[in-house]
């Protein structure tokens, strides 16, 4: 059957635009994350230094900014993939909203994690506590 031209939805620009803006933010911030991780892995960063470096208010703010750039990039990237491979509107609506919920949950949890300096004891992993 011949597909009809349903006109233009005027969407897509913002996904494309914010994917690129977040990409530029990540281009500078992700190497820092991986750098700190690799230095810690090699034993060059002790707990004391890591603790001071990542719980300073400025680095907390930077972590939040990084978190939201990461989430924006994940959302725009995954949305395009879902639109590419899932072809019924109903399935798209369900999957996109589940994804949105998961990302929002992750955003809330990670913001809390960063701000309250959540740590874990092995008695109760999910509830954290100092």
């Amino acid at each position, binding site marked *: 059957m011949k597909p009809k031209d349903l006109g233009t939805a005027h969407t897509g620009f913002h996904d494309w635009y914010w994917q690129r803006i977040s990409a530029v933010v990540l281009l500078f911030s*992700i190497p820092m*994350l991986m750098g700190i*991780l690799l230095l810690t892995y090699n034993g060059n960063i002790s707990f004391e230094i890591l603790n001071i*470096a990542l719980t300073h208010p400025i680095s907390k703010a930077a972590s939040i900014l990084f978190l939201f750039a990461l989430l924006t990039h994940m959302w725009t990237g995954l949305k395009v993939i879902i639109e590419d491979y899932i072809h019924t509107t109903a399935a798209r609506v369900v999957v996109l909203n589940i994804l949105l919920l998961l990302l929002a949950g992750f955003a809330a949890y990670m913001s809390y994690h960063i701000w309250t300096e959540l740590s874990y004891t092995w008695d109760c992993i999910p509830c954290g506590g100092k």
Partner: protein
Amino acid sequence: MSQKMKQSPLSPRLSIYKWRLTMFASIAHRASGVFLVFTIPALFWLLLSMAHGKITYAYGLHWLQGSFGTFVLWLTCVALFYHMVNGIRFLLLDIGKTDSREAMKLSAKIVVFSTIAFALLLAIKI
């Protein structure tokens, strides 16, 4: 009637199309992106948890330095390297640089082969 009802077959597409390097570069960008969606948030969470408590630091470091942790770290670095270098390639195309036919093919080569070199180098160094 039955002749008319018969639907024309769709000519074959992905199964027969020859893989070009630019096509590989694009799908690899997508594949590495999907992989990073899982590992980057997890590693970010791990690093923060390690910074927040001494016990978590010790356990986290133990896991990272184990063979599975090392492998995850290596694979994430490789996927990230590719996604970033090819991402720069895409950003340059977006602003209208390096977008001649030759530059598009050459940049795909550079991106893919530099990632292979990086993966090997990191495997030795890590």
